[in-house]
């Protein structure tokens, strides 16, 4: 009996909708527009989010361990005199002359590499340097790396524009230079470049490769040499390095692991989230934007349906009265109009998904204009099934909400008042 009642309600609902095709179509287009914009927004924004996330994780460590220069040590005088009862004035105290190295770094590296969460760890010795192109100097930095580990971590071989990693592995005098820095220095693979260290020593190195990360700040300044070469250039022992980069099996575990490492080794352990706070802020802003715009669209579409359903019900007062008089229960009357709303929502929503997919695909084909700053051929779009499921769900929820109140009103119509006129 109940099933037949619902089927009957559906039949009446469909007849009502088909009798007013234009009105139904307009209501459906409202939902279609809302849902398609939701799909486009979320696909595009998440595409950007993922692009930046990939870019970030591609070029930076999940955790970076380093020795921050201690500049806030207590005044030496405080050790000798009671600072609570005496005035101590030490002007412009300098930091202690101690190397900002990771002590016992080699052992630390071994231990960290053995941790189950860690995929790879790589020591680095980074330093500022000047690169010479004739009389002109360009500031940059030289990073001494464990070539094999670094290659595994950052897939350096994928980023080579010319030359090869193997040359750096075998050549103690070799240097790999960022694409844009190489252009400024006007060097190609095989040329020699002179580099001045902060200590004043100048070295002549052979360019064995040119790489591009697709991030201008890296390609503009960075160069790689072997760790041993960097140690030699700075006149440091062979266990001397300043940074350790860690790549995890799952980058989401970084913030959980970092405090333990800090505690264990007593050095700063910086996660990718902290180092790239702006990325996360950007992601949050984009998410909020997506949410607000999509919600607005859906609310507008919802009000459209609400209006149309209200109008329909006012127009259908006589029909409602007669249905009630001939024995339709309140619930069935509600169903008739709620179903109309739902049909508008679902069919409008499905069209919205199709339109959203098409528009997203269109945007996916548009070339991205910022070739020099970041490497991106076309606008990034994410295609995920759950965006579409969410879109359809939102559409259905909005229309059910928009249809519910008018439908309740329909169920409350007093047939006597209508029939008696």
């Amino acid at each position, binding site marked *: 009996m109940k099933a037949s009642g619902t089927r009957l309600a559906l039949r009446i609902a469909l*007849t009502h909708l088909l*009798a007013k095709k234009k009105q139904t179509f307009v209501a459906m287009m409202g939902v279609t527009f809302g849902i398609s914009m939701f799909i486009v927004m979320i696909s595009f924004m998440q595409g950007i989010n993922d692009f930046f996330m990939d870019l970030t994780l591609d070029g930076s460590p999940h955790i970076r361990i380093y020795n921050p220069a201690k500049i806030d040590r207590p005044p030496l005088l405080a050790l000798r005199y009671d600072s609570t009862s005496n005035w101590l004035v030490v002007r412009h105290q300098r930091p202690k002359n101690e190397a900002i190295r990771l002590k016992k770094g080699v052992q630390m590296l071994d231990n960290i590499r053995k941790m189950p969460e860690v995929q790879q760890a790589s020591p680095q010795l980074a330093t500022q340097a000047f690169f010479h192109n004739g009389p002109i100097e360009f500031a940059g930095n030289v990073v001494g790396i464990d070539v094999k580990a670094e290659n595994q971590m950052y897939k350096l071989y994928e980023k080579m524009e010319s030359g090869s990693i193997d040359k750096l592995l075998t050549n103690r005098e070799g240097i790999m230079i960022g694409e844009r820095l190489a252009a400024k220095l006007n060097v190609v693979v095989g040329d020699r470049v002179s580099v001045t260290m902060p200590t004043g020593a100048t070295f002549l190195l052979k360019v064995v490769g040119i790489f591009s990360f697709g991030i201008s700040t890296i390609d503009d300044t960075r160069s790689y040499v072997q760790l041993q070469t960097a140690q030699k250039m700075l006149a440091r022992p062979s266990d001397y390095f300043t940074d350790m980069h860690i790549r995890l099996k799952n980058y989401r575990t970084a913030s959980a692991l970092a405090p333990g490492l800090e505690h264990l080794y007593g050095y700063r352990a910086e996660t990718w989230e902290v180092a790239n706070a702006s990325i996360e802020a950007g992601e949050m802003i984009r998410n909020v934007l997506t949410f607000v715009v999509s919600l607005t669209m859906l609310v507008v579409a919802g009000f459209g349906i609400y209006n149309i359903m209200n109008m329909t019900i006012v127009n259908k007062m006589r029909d409602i009265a007669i249905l009630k*008089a*001939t024995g339709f*229960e*309140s619930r069935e009357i509600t169903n008739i109009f709620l179903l109309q709303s739902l049909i508008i929502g679902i069919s409008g929503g499905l069209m919205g998904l199709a339109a959203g997919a098409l528009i997203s695909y269109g945007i996916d084909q548009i070339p991205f204009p910022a070739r020099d700053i970041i490497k991106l051929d076309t606008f990034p779009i994410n295609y995920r099934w759950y965006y579409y499921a969410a879109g359809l769900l939102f559409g259905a929820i909005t229309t059910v909400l928009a249809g519910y109140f008018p439908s309740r009103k329909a169920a409350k119509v007093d047939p006597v008042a209508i*029939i*008696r006129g």
Partner: protein
Amino acid sequence: MQTTTSHPIVIEAQGISKTFFDPNPFLVLDHISFQVEKGAFVSLVGKSGCGKSTLLYVLSTLDTEYEGKLRLGGELVTGFDQDRLARFRNEHLGFVFQFHFLLPEFSALENVMLPALKLGKYSAEEIEVRAMEKLRLVGMEDFALKNAMKLSGGQQQRVAIARALINDPMVIMGDEPTGNLDKKNSLIVLDILKELAAVNQQTIITVTHDQEFAERTDRILQMEDGKLL
């Protein structure tokens, strides 16, 4: 109504009263009690505002705000909730109104079929056959597939009667069923109703202004100032 007596009571009103409160308290029905037997064709007459329509809507179970007791087919319907009343109307009552109130988007046949589809006692195919029978009874079988809006007033009223009959109701109630029709159509409707009472033993109670119409029914209930004379 499987009772042994030849004329069981189908409608029984016991002290039905109703007050309108807007704008001032006004007793529109004043302790009305009466009985109607099975197969009777009763007309309810009286001046405008005497409460005859109000009484009809109380009897129809559409209006539940009254005092007193109402039995239909021996069952006390006073106090049923709205959904139960809806099911009761669906199964046992048929309505014919002054304005035909067909659903405009549906064909004549579909309009007749709807209450039966709602009842769900028969399959859709059987209901269609039965609906065609009812349409034949009111002489509308040729217009079965026509959209309700495309019929004339008299034709629509006949379709409405067919709709009232579809579930073989115990009582058919009419609120000025001929009030909107010309002479010829009024007579057609009257004849159909008379036949239903006489042949099918269905009880009919209608409100009417039309003295001629009233005189041709079995029994006239005269109302004045909320009282039955």
